[in-house]
């Protein structure tokens, strides 16, 4: 069943049709929120608040636009808002300190386990700004085009391209330096 049909059913009063929409997008929205907030509980809260907000304002959704783009926009605003409030309340902890808590095996990317890759990415993302994290998340969410990324982030397409390139470069540099550090410590 298409998104449009499900939305029409929800608008017509069949609330249960909303479950199908939630199940279709919950992983994407949760991942987007998690990559911005870097905290499972906060990501869960942001994702839940997103879906409830989307239900409340579904009446304002224009059916000529793409539901996923609209949903990601609401989710990213929700997560960015929480990230900014969190940053004001407590500055991000030093990622290097967290990194030293656990022993890692081989710090060559090809030989790492999935868990290790996930952990190092988390540490690298913690060194980036939340706006960079949003752009990177949208970049790696494969079905989101550059035009949609611009719409979701509220930036123009050229700015998105430039910032996304910078963010990827920054992430690569930070990740490389974390991996080098790990390699040195392992020796």
């Amino acid at each position: 069943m298409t998104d449009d049909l499900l939305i029409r059913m929800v608008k017509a009063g069949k609330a249960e049709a909303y479950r199908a929409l939630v199940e279709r997008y919950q992983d994407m929205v949760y991942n987007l929120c998690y990559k911005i907030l870097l905290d499972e509980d906060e990501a869960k809260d942001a994702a839940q608040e997103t879906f409830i907000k989307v239900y409340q304002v579904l009446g304002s959704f224009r059916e000529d636009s793409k539901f996923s783009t609209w949903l990601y926009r609401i989710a990213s605003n929700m997560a960015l808002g929480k990230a900014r409030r969190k940053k004001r309340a407590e500055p991000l902890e030093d990622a290097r300190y967290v990194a030293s808590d656990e022993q890692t095996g081989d710090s060559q990317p090809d030989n790492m386990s999935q868990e290790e890759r996930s952990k190092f990415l988390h540490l690298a993302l913690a060194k980036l700004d939340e706006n960079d994290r949003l752009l990177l998340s949208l970049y790696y969410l494969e079905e989101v085009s550059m035009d949609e990324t611009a719409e979701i982030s509220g930036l123009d397409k050229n700015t998105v391209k430039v910032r996304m390139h910078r963010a990827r470069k920054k992430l690569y540099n930070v990740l490389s330096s974390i991996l080098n550090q790990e390699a040195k410590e392992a020796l």
Partner: protein
Amino acid sequence: MKQLPDDMLRQFWQDSKKEAPEGFSDFIMQNLPQHSPLSEALKKPLLSPGIAASLAGLLVVLALLLYNLKGSGQSSSGWYLTMQQWLDSSLSWLGSSPATLPTIGAFSVAIVLLIVLDRLLKRMLNRMEG
């Protein structure tokens, strides 16, 4: 950026994908508002402040115009005479049916009250929707 780093980053990204927590959709369904989503048209006031102000302005201008027509009789231009005739016939019609004026008055007050009530209700609705 070279191809290899991007592949590497993509691999890291793929490996860090997470699934939404267990029972996520159940939680959402249990916490949805009890009413179905309201259409935006329903949440908008019947009259926007601009239109309401324009209508009120128009009424005031008309009232002033009629008041002036009734009070003076110098001009003899075509539009003035037409308006004067229209005013005279309206006044005689009102005079012949004494219940008309209070009815129009009550009707106008009811419309103003309805517009105010509508705005209050829509504001409450928007506040409830968050």
